[in-house]
């Protein structure tokens, strides 16, 4: 921080930013010490939305917990559902049918677009660009209609199941998604014309909240925030899961690690997600979406009503202590969620409920670096930096 020699020294001022503030995007609080308009010290306070998700995991069975995962990153619940069941499936050591993996990938990428669209809209709104918010939410609305038709819910999707999905995609899903894919790049183009070379936007975002590549790794950054700092790291490429190695897509990498680069990286990621979805739709295999094992996945209605084994399994899988029971052991499974590495560490004692579930939340880890990014900057930049990190309070506090 550079000191102006002509400045008259004044009393430092303490400002309470949040817990209720339009730009905090959830309930979080930062106590900032100001010297004029310069941030001298920032202390984040969190825990306002702490709901004990990890404790709940020890008291819910494996399929019940999917409902809890919806409430973590509530901008992209499908990605959480996806990451969680992958961890349980790794624990069970089962492979779900190919069609299921493809549908999961399509929905995870769609929710990445939805997440980034909201991020874009809200981030721009915080910096005064109201139009972009409307554009972003319009696109998200189209996606949420698809999600609603697929899962039955807009927000609390709970679509995945251990060993499969709630149900197959609806007739016409493909057309709806293709329709969306053909229109959303146009919106992105319009946003580019509104923001990318916009003088005000560049002044507000360039060289603001800079994180170097070394610092980004040291602070545990993942996802778009890490890539904006110039580190080429994407779990979909580095540790491919669910056939991501079959899809041809690029990983956008920034250079400066500032708010502007995080914006550009996210914009490009949406285009790349579109490419993945296009390929997944073109090659979408036929077949069942659930594993052919009634100890793990609910029987079909024909079996449940048609024969005694199906009926018994239909009840047993729901009954406490008779459902999905992975062998004792532990597993850590990380997926590339829209915000970064979403990891589930599950310890099983061989019963129907996890012994311990730990969620590695990207938002929590990114939020830690906030003081590092805003100290020495201007007070108005807090909003820009906070927006660029996409802190989701539900995931932050769990």
């Amino acid at each position, binding site marked *: 921080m550079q000191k102006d020699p002509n400045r008259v020294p004044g009393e430092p001022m303490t400002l309470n930013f949040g817990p209720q503030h339009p730009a905090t995007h959830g309930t979080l609080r930062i106590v900032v010490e100001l010297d004029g308009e310069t941030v001298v010290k920032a202390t984040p306070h969190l825990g306002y939305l702490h709901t004990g998700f990890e404790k709940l995991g020890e*008291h819910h069975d494996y399929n019940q917990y999917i409902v809890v995962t919806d409430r973590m990153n509530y901008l992209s619940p499908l990605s959480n559902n996806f990451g969680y069941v992958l961890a349980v499936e790794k624990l069970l050591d089962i492979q779900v049918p190919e069609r299921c993996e493809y549908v999961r990938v399509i929905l995870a990428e769609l929710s990445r677009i939805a997440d980034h669209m909201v991020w874009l809209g809200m981030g721009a709104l915080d910096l005064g660009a109201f139009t972009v918010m409307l554009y972003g939410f319009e696109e998200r609305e189209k996606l949420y209609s698809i999600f609603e038709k697929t899962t039955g819910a807009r927000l609390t999707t709970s679509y995945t199941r251990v060993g499969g999905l709630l149900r197959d995609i609806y007739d016409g899903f493909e057309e709806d998604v293709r329709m969306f894919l053909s229109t959303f790049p146009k919106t992105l183009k319009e946003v580019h014309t509104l923001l990318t070379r916009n003088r005000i936007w560049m002044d507000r975002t360039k060289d603001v909240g800079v994180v170097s590549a070394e610092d980004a790794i*040291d602070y*545990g950054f993942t996802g778009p925030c890490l890539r904006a700092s110039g580190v080429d790291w994407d779990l979909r490429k580095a540790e491919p899961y669910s056939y991501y190695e079959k899809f041809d897509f690029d990983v956008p990498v920034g250079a400066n690690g500032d708010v502007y680069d995080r914006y550009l990286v996210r914009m490009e990621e949406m285009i790349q997600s579109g490419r993945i979805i296009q390929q997944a739709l073109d090659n979408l295999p036929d077949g069942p979406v659930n594993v052919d094992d009634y100890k793990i996945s609910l029987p079909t209605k024909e079996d449940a009503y048609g024969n005694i084994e199906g009926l018994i399994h239909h009840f047993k899988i729901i009954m406490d202590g008779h459902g999905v029971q992975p062998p004792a052991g532990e597993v850590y499974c990380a997926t590339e969620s829209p915000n970064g590495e979403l990891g589930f560490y599950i310890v099983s004692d061989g019963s129907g409920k996890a012994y311990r579930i730990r969620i590695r939340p990207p938002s929590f880890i990114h939020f830690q670096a906030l003081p590092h990014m805003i100290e020495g900057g201007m007070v108005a930049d807090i909003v820009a930096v906070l927006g660029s990190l996409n802190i989701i309070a539900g995931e932050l506090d769990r």
Partner: protein
Amino acid sequence: MSEGQEVTAEEQQPLVVQKVQEQYPDAILDVSDARGELTITVRKEGIYELMAFLKSDSELAYNFLADVTAVDYSLMEDVLMKHDYARFTVVYHLLSTERKERLRVKVPVHEKELSIPSMASIWKVANWLERETYDMFGITFDAHPDLRRILMPDDYEGYPLRKDYPLRGRGERETFNFEEQNV
């Protein structure tokens, strides 16, 4: 750990195990490689040096600390027996972005000396992750720059993720002050 096949033959040992054994002969208690995830269980003594070695060694280069958490094993008798009745285990998830390899380091911690060196000076990310572990389990981290509760209020009593802590909390509702309204 109890699951998986233990790697016994010397030449089959993964690189990290070989190197750690060379550098710190007594440190490793157990090695397992279940579901493609390499786990080493190590002694608490000298853990700080070992973790610094894992990061700084040019061949291992575990430059990324993905997660720090703990598990309360008090209800899992077989694990307790294996680790000399150490109730807690601190779990580190390391990642080498260069080699694209992950490593889980587990450190059993006894309840009577519930502390472990802080890794915050090796990885900055450890700061909050250790605060959360302290908040939830009551494990203190020595030489931590700012060891306070993070998710629970500062005056909160008890450690919610311990196995003896009830799901619905302990006494909060009984002690909650309701103001009587005079209608």
